[in-house]
């Protein structure tokens, strides 16, 4: 049953090959199907051994308390994206494969299997990154991501050499103090690249700012969430993070540098991509502390960041920098999303920052809260600046063509109709903005979920019980 989550999207992907535009219509239904399966037919605490091979010999698909919420969230995002993005020919097929791969990487309990899914995700990411004529950015991403994937492969193989099996659960039994850090460093490099921690995440601004309605969401929201899951699984559940202070420091530097980078940008897309880097770096910094309250707050922060950036990038893709004069509802969604990112009450972002700061202070960590707040000040500066500019656009001085703007976006302005946002995108952005407000008033909705995830992720026993079936 679990395998359907991966198999169905793949089947529909193959089925959509003959006709170019068919994939686009399959995608929302597949995502909906996945969600329905998850809600009604599956329960956390299941494991599927592919081919009836026992877990140590074969691939095990694990649905436990950590992967279940992540799966729901990711499929929900895919559904939203299917409704709001403008998908050109063949992109439907691509995204169906992406759905399969993302579900797979969350479900799988086998290192090599996750490597394969990771590479599938990467290849699709390179293609999607090249949307809107952005081949150069995609190529940069390819080179970098290729090396990252290689590192992951080395890590997986090292696990095999040491423990004799590729299963994640069994890998937890490796105790050699010399080898474990090496393995972890291989994995860490991959995650630092994919999770956009500077200086390894420098590919992100070029890739996310191409003005597409698909790229930043597919990559920045969906792929990032699944990789945060994988990061949590590997480093919080199975292995111990090597030198967590170093990861924390790298992430903190990344937060500040990304915010400063965003300050200078004249293009909204690049500013938003820097903001994404900063957001995910915060999550990484928080997760590296290995505390359940902090991890829970980190997941809450991830939720807020991903949903807000979804709204912001979608509106940027459709409106460019044309302003909100004829799109008041879009403007409100945009403003709500930016206020949530900065962390103003009463939006979800405030509670994210509140929980995070509260948990950090309880473990007497003083540097990270200061960095988060400084980053929030800078964020407030440029996000409010963009808000004011977009709300009051066209009222006074004629629009200045800045030299820094990518030429790709100027082409897009010419092609798209004036101030046209597809109905699906409008509905989705409004819906998500309302979600931010609702969570802002009732943070318990999400917070309970994240506490559950955090508690389960840091305790390796339930996971191992599931894989080892209650015994060695």
């Amino acid at each position, binding site marked *: 049953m679990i395998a359907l989550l991966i198999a169905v999207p793949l089947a529909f992907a193959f089925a959509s090959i003959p006709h170019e535009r068919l994939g686009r219509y399959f995608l929302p239904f597949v995502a909906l199907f996945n969600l329905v399966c998850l809600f009604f037919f599956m329960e956390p605490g299941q494991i599927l051994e592919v081919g009836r091979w026992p877990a140590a010999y074969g691939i095990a698909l694990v649905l436990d308390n950590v992967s279940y919420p992540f799966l729901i969230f990711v499929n929900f995002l895919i559904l939203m994206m299917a409704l709001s993005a403008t998908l050109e020919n063949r992109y439907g097929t691509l995204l169906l494969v992406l759905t399969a791969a993302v579900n797979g990487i969350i479900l799988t309990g086998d290192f090599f299997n996750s490597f394969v899914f990771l590479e599938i995700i990467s290849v699709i990411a390179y293609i999607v990154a090249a949307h809107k004529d952005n081949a150069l950015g995609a190529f940069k991403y390819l*080179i970098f991501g290729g090396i990252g994937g290689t590192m992951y492969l080395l890590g997986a193989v090292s696990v095999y050499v040491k423990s004799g099996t590729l299963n994640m659960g069994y890998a937890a039994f490796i105790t050699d103090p010399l080898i474990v850090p090496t393995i972890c460093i291989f994995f860490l490099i991959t995650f630092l690249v994919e999770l956009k921690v500077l200086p390894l995440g420098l590919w992100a601004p070029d890739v996310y700012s191409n003005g597409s309605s698909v790229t930043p969401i597919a990559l920045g929201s969906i792929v990032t969430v699944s990789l945060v899951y994988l990061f949590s699984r590997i480093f919080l559940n199975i292995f111990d993070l090597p030198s967590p202070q170093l990861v924390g420091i790298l992430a903190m530097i990344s937060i500040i540098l*990304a915010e*400063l980078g965003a300050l200078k940008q004249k293009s909204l897309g690049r500013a938003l991509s820097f903001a994404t880097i900063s957001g995910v770096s915060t999550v990484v910094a928080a997760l590296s502390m290995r505390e359940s309250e902090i991890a829970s707050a980190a997941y809450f922060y991830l939720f807020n960041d991903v949903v807000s950036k979804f709204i912001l990038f979608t509106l940027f893709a459709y409106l460019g920098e044309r302003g909100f004069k004829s799109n008041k509802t879009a403007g409100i969604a945009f403003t709500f999303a930016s206020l949530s990112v900065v962390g103003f009450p009463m939006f979800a972002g405030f509670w994210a920052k509140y929980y995070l700061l509260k948990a950090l202070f309880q473990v007497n960590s003083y540097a990270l809260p200061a960095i988060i707040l400084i980053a929030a000040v800078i964020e407030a500066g440029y996000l409010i*600046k963009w808000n004011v500019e977009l709300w009051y656009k066209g009222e006074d001085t004629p629009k200045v063509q800045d030299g820094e703007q990518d030429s790709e976006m100027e082409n897009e302005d010419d092609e798209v109709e004036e101030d046209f946002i597809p109905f699906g995108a409008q509905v989705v952005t409004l819906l998500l903005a309302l979600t931010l407000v609702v969570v802002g008033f009732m943070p318990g909705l999400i917070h309970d979920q994240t506490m559950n995830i955090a508690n389960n992720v840091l305790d390796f026993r339930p996971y191992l019980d599931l894989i080892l079936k209650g015994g060695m």
Partner: protein
Amino acid sequence: MQSLLLYLAVGALVGYFLSMINRRLGPIVLLALSLYGLFTLWNMPIGSVEGLFGFEDILQFTALSKYFSIITLIVFSCYAFFNIVWISKAKRPHAFSALSILTLFGTLGVFLTPHLIALYIFWEIAVVASLFIVPMGKEESKKATIWYIVISSIGSYMFLYGTFLLYSKFGTFNLFEISGDIASESTGFKWLVSLLLLSAGIAKSGIFPLHVWLRNVHGNAPDTFSAVLSGQLVKMGSYIIALLLGTFPIATMFSQFYAGVNIFSYVLIWLGNISILIGTFMAIKQNDMKMLMAYSTVANGGYILIGLALLDQVGFAGGLFHVINHALAATMIFLSFAAVVYRTGTTKIDEMGGLIFKMPVTFVTYLVGIISIAGIPPTSGFVSKWMIFQSLISKGMFVTAMFAFVGSIGSFLYVFRPLAGVFLGQLKRKDKDVKEAPMIMLIPMIILVALTILWGVFPQQVLVWVTDVQRQFGMEPFKFDGTVLYSSLGHWDSWTVFVMFMVGFIIAAVIYILMPKGKKIPLDDQYTSGEFLHNFDLYHYATKYYAFLEREYEGHPSFEDWYTSIVNVLKAIGKGVDYFVRRTASAYTFWMALVLALLLWVRW
């Protein structure tokens, strides 16, 4: 309290939709809500505790809450009343009304809760609501908005950091519960937490060094909203300062420094001094009416801070009294400016002149406002200034007293400039048809004038509020008896002063009536010395009014430039980051190898 807050929150939405029907309905909703609030809170007993949204006991109505809420509601009522006519000139009337109501909601919420996180939430709601009103003003207001949010965020986030520090030490967010325990912490912790929490107040009330945003924001915001910004939002900062200085046992927390004043208060007093200095001297230079008054807010914020930081019987009361005085005066002045701009369309002083006969009521409003700011009886400004001076001198703090005096004199210099430049002098040809402001606009101005004079003659009502606050904080309350105010250096009777003033006024009136009528000269003769003009040149002395004084401090360092250069440094770093981003994959690999090497090196 709870119902009031709920009504306000709903009222914002209601106001938005009603103002779509008729834009005047928005301010009417605000007016109704403010009057309702005024009525409710005036009669609410001090010390009542209520819950909100299921949080138990989160709203607490202290004496300080009552005082500040009443000030706020007076300002907002006059603002709403004025807006009923003014809103026809507003750029986005629906959002304007809705956000104004939301600002009131946030502000009242700040005053009503001692729970630091709830306070922070309401604070930020007020900031965000006012944030989106500011760019509806002039063109330059858009850049001003950025200054506003950045400096306000610096203050708010330092506040948040301090809150969490306290929480991690004491496990509670309720300020009143913490106040007892904090005296036993280490000195470094006390300094850090107090400074962090106070910085929100410092940023909001425009005290040096976080004062640079006031000029642009208050100067460029929509005209009537400047009244709210200057008259009320900065008072939110003063509230925090008063709350913290009163609740924390500051007097015992820090070591004694000078004449019974502890070192922390002394630092604050010096910040206040510099604010007075900067505010006064920068105001003298300004040509734009509203920016001038914005600097005046900086200076008066300094007065309030000095008064509050003195933490004694007379000084603290004086600081609190000055809050209401400045609120009334700033509102009056900004509303009269708004009326003038409504009729003439410009805020530059040297483009106007001679409006005294055209807009007499506005003139009187402005006149009373500046008399109050300068601290001249029988307006209420005199009472607060007197109390602050008394306290300073009785402590022997002569340097600060000197700054306060300089500020007072200087304040009369800079407030006189718009008076002479706008109302006196030569009437410009284009302003020949200017009429008085509409009646509805005049009513709130007259109310404010009446209040100022009333409380100048009978300060008892305000003093009752103020002494209640002092008692709440365990301070010795200010002594007064009817209209007689006592301090350690002497006393005076405000009624006597007023009577003397009236007697003088009556004598002058009698002389004026009995003596032969002087010749009524036209306005022109003021500045032409009776000469006959052949052409309508500009003989109006308004440009570079105080050039002789400004020359003295021409080359002064500008804080705004200093902040801008910090921002430029940060932008340069960002540009560096961007530079790295634009490199190719080869550079990335290099960096990746570097990071890998770093990780491995740290491991082994």
